[in-house]
């Protein structure tokens, strides 16, 4: 039994529920989320569809008519699945995590690839090259994948350069764009609309549909950006 942070469980529609451990980016909480996700996936209750781990929350999707089938009680599917999750949580063990992979990502900060670098520098009241130096000085952790196929949500950005998202999203962000959104950083695996501040671009492929594991990154990976 581990020391659990405070949590809340709530429905995400009638076929999913979310367990949320607060609203902060923390490696410890993220490890609880991913361990719980694996545990629920491996025990697979009746009606289970899939788990979606995020920074500090886990969402469990299910098919309510199947989740209820075995139970001829007055319980709702939500109550049944909630109790599956609570049991998994109470018996959860966090093993020593494996030595994380370190992935180097080469980035070009050339002006034509970095439409928002100037804005981030203005936000930080620093020069563009100072922003780049601060950005390159940290190693980031992949906390979750989401948004687009293989898009890594990484943290944490140095507060000095943690510029918020754009007020209205761009209609088109180029594939490989490297962006900042508050204390997070990410890379667009595909061309897509998006609201992150774009400070550079990489040529690395983040998503290869026909591979057995189609995404380059996994939760827990460490990422080091290098300048090209």
């Amino acid at each position: 039994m581990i020391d659990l942070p405070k949590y809340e469980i709530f429905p995400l529609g009638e076929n999913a529920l979310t367990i949320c451990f607060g609203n902060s980016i923390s490696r410890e909480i993220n490890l609880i989320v991913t361990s719980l996700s694996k545990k629920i996936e491996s025990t697979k209750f009746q009606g289970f569809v899939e788990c979606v781990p995020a920074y500090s929350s886990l969402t469990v999707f299910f098919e309510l008519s199947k989740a209820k089938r075995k139970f001829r009680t007055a319980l709702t599917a939500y109550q049944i699945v909630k109790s599956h999750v609570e049991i998994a949580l109470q018996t959860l063990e966090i093993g020593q995590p494996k030595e994380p992979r370190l992935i180097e990502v080469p980035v070009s900060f050339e002006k034509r690839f970095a439409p928002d670098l100037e804005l981030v520098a203005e936000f930080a009241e620093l020069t563009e090259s100072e922003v780049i130096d601060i950005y390159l000085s940290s190693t980031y952790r992949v906390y979750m994948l989401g948004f687009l196929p293989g898009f890594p949500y990484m943290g944490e950005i140095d507060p000095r350069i943690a510029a918020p998202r754009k007020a209205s999203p761009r209609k088109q962000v180029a594939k490989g764009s490297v962006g900042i959104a508050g204390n997070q950083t990410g890379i667009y695996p595909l061309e897509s609309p998006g609201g992150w501040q774009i400070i550079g671009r990489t040529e690395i492929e983040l998503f290869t549909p026909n591979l057995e594991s189609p995404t380059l990154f996994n939760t827990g990976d460490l990422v080091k950006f290098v300048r090209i």
Partner: protein
Amino acid sequence: MGISIKKAGVFDTIQDLGRFGFRKLGINPGGAMDKNALRLINIILGNPESEPAIEMHFPACQIVFEKPAVFALGGADFDATLDKLPVPNWKTHLAKKGSILSFRKKLSGSRCYFGIRHGFEIERWLGSASTNLAANIGGVKGRQLRNDDQIRFSKAHAAEKNFLGFEIATSLRPVSKTIQMIRITKGIEYRDLTALSEQRLFEGAYEISNDSNRMGYKLDGNPLHLLSRKELLSSAVGFGTVQLPPYGKPLLLMADHQTTGGYPRIGHVIKRDLSLVGQMGPGDKILFELVSIDEAEKIEEQYERDVAYLRMGVKFKQTDAKD
């Protein structure tokens, strides 16, 4: 051989019930916008409910049968004709070799589904044939259908007459309206709405804006506000999640939604009504109605029972026809 697209429509893709198990990699389930329509036509065709079909918008494509087939249409009513004779929705029909299927007029709904007995030969990616346009994969080359595309039938089949004449009971056929009552359950940030906003959400209609597509509908109507602005970490969202971005107008996530999001979640359209919103389009209006999770579960269970009866009915009738 199977069918060929004589003339492409404005936006036709291959869709099934979705691609599950990969949201944690950022790969969304996608699939039909009106999943119930797809399930129903597959049932009367004697197919697995998840068999892929063509999802069409209007103007829809013109299709030539290179081989005879039993087919069905469901969802939106685009006034279909087969060799100039009307072919109503929710029934099985026989197409001869060389027959041409056309769609003349948008009578109701936004998305029509065209399925055939035994289905099409479509390669599966991660277990699904659905077209994922963002990733350019699934369906036919990961894109919408074009002129002269050919889609093979998955099985050589003589026209199976024992699958003709099946029809979906009127009570199960959804009625598409341009103003629709849509039921939602509370999202977690519903509790953060101001009292006035809570009232407003159910008071007036929300119009689906032109800037709406398979990813989501931008709604226009009474502005809504939270008691305090919330900065949330990204977490999972679903088909039917009603988000409230800072500009105060709800955003309804549809089949091709992104897997995670950070906007406050004020509600979730119940699964039964997703098919109704999936048939709506720009200019149509939504009136939200609040239901509890208990009620939502009961509505879905009742629907699943009705669909199960339809499935059994088709099985019995098919057996009778063989005898």
